[in-house]
């Protein structure tokens, strides 16, 4: 058996960074890969956020269809508890389950929403798992012990090690900590590559996939070094050293891409994709402060004056929001700073706080209009450029789990959920934030040299299945990226549409999905802090 399709995830990759790096000779392999094959900008879903976007890539469906909207999920009931996302939130088939269900082997490395791991034929090492629990997360049983024999295997660095990462990132304004932090991510990508190499050589799968997430992290924290033209020119030796380390990361990544392509050989289809793009961010829009000023939200007790411990966006306050808000007087609120979503409290039973169901449409419209009208007092610019309703962007059987409104800010940044005397302020320095347009690149049998313009992230799952010779389920909202193929190849290998092989069944059947608990998750918050969601 050999690898038929290699899917390489580059979390947050954007041609705004990659094109200059290729021009400067930092990524010569990627340059040749694109020159020989197909490239396209890849439009992601709303919101352009890691868990829902990768889930859309893996399912070919939008969040309202697949059920993942954010890192966090609000539990039903009056408790306002929030928990961390997991694979049981994914309510439809994935490329892993579809391929495995049709007799192919799959290897999935470091993809999110993969724990608890699906019991596919092949291997799963989920992403977003703390290193101490990695044994619980790997599939099949015994895989971790096999991986321990891989050269350079380092469990602490491979998966999440909060203490290690915290050490590298805590107070990254401290110049000495940038270097170790970037070097950690260089080693981590190497670690994932070595695992992939081992499995491809020793126990290959037709569908093999790995996700490199350091791209996203570096761009969050080091945007001003990667693209100083978006911030201020680099002047000090230290700034140039940090930039050089960032280039080292991408140079090494380029080397790994080359080695992986050599490993699977020219008969394999190689697809590269990101979950979203990236760009600079300068603003901090304190959404809950805005809601409070407009009479939609009330803080509990002294919550408005509490020390936020240096946090900017308030990821560290996510689990505490239950205690920070006065729910009896709150009609609209933002629970997380990661998805820019606003929830509206509805008094469904006539005895709860919130607005009456009959008032909901008008209330939501008024709120959306007022948000669009909010302007930067310095220059009169609109701060909120788009306000999407749930119906507009999350249609589907699971839309109710999504926020009522989703905001797009003028600089593509994230909201702050913290109490604040100011509604709008500036970041201490330019950071990186997600954008709708990511990257796609492909090489392999039948793929022609082309610039395919723009594709949808929903097209990746159908394209993966087609490259494996499998039919595309009718339920998928995307389509095979036919324009990347030579027409003669498509004639010989036509796209096949089929009903899903079997009705999707959740693994936990007796009482609904087995939900992961969520609480005061300092660990998750530290992780997100590291990602640059907070300063």
């Amino acid at each position: 058996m050999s690898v038929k399709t290699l899917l390489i995830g580059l979390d947050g990759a954007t041609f705004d960074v990659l094109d200059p790096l290729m021009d400067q000779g930092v990524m010569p392999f990627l340059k040749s890969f694109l020159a020989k094959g197909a490239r396209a900008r890849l439009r992601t879903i709303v919101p352009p956020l890691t868990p829902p976007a990768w889930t859309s890539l893996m399912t070919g469906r939008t969040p309202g269809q697949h059920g993942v909207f954010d890192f966090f999920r609000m539990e039903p009931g009056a408790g306002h508890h929030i928990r961390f996302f997991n694979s049981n939130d994914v309510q439809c088939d994935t490329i892993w389950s579809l391929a495995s269900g049709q007799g192919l082997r799959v290897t999935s490395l470091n993809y999110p929403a993969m724990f608890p791991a699906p019991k596919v034929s092949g291997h799963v090492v989920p992403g977003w798992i703390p290193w101490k629990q990695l044994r619980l997360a790997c599939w099949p049983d015994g895989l971790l012990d096999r991986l321990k024999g891989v050269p350079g295997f380092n469990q602490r660095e491979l998966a999440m090690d909060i203490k290690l990462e915290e050490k590298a990132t805590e107070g990254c304004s401290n110049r000495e900590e940038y270097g170790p932090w970037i070097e950690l991510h260089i080693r981590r990508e190497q670690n994932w590559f070595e695992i992939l190499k081992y499995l491809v050589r020793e126990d290959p799968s037709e569908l093999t996939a790995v996700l490199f997430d350091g791209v996203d992290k570096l761009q969050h924290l080091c945007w001003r070094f990667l693209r100083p033209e978006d911030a201020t020119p680099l002047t000090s030796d230290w700034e140039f050293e940090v930039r050089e380390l960032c280039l080292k990361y991408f140079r090494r990544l380029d080397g790994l891409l080359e080695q992986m392509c050599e490993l699977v050989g020219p008969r394999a289809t190689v697809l590269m994709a990101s979950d979203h793009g990236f760009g600079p961010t300068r603003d901090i829009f304190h959404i809950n402060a805005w809601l409070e000023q407009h009479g939609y939200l009330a803080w509990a007790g002294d919550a408005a004056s509490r020390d936020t411990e240096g946090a900017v966006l308030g990821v560290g306050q996510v689990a505490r929001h239950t205690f920070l808000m006065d729910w009896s007087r709150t009609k609209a609120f933002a629970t997380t700073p990661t998805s820019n979503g606003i929830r509206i409290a509805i008094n469904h039973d006539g005895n709860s706080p919130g607005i009456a169901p009959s008032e909901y449409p008008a209330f939501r419209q008024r709120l959306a209009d007022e948000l669009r009208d909010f302007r930067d007092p310095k220059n009169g610019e609109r701060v909120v450029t788009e306000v999407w309703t749930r119906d507009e962007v999350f249609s589907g059987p699971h839309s109710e789990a999504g926020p009522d409104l989703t905001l797009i800010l003028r600089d593509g940044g994230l909201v702050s959920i913290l109490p604040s005397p100011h509604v709008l302020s500036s970041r201490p320095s330019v950071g990186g934030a997600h954008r709708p347009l990511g990257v796609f690149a492909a090489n392999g049998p039948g793929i022609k040299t082309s610039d395919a313009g723009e594709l949808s992230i929903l097209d990746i799952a159908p394209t993966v299945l087609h490259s494996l010779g499998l039919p595309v389920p009718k339920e998928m909202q995307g389509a095979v990226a036919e324009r990347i193929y030579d027409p003669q190849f498509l004639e010989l290998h036509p796209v096949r549409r089929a009903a899903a092989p079997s009705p999707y069944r959740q693994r936990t059947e007796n009482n609904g999905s087995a939900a992961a608990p969520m609480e005061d998750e300092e660990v998750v918050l530290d992780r997100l802090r590291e990602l640059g969601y907070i300063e």
Partner: protein
Amino acid sequence: MKAPRTEILEYVLRTIEDLSQDWDYTREVGPQTLLFRELGMESLDVVVLGTAIQEHYQFQMPFAELLADVGQRASHDLSISELVDFVDLHLNANVPTAGTGIGHG
């Protein structure tokens, strides 16, 4: 899937012993071992462990509320025995999700 408390305890102990071989943890793990202070777990470790327990028993339990309770305790910690009590209570008594049934220490 219902299970007697002794079996739950055995399962949780075995799971943590399996995990601890990757941590260079050499001390004995028992019912009174504390997850945070002694095993050095972080919140997300407990989140993942809780998900695994739910997956094993194919039963949803209010771990979010349990951990919120732990956060309000003076000790800010949870023993394996208390974790097992929590699982036993919900798995075998069908306690509604409101309330964890575990008192504050």
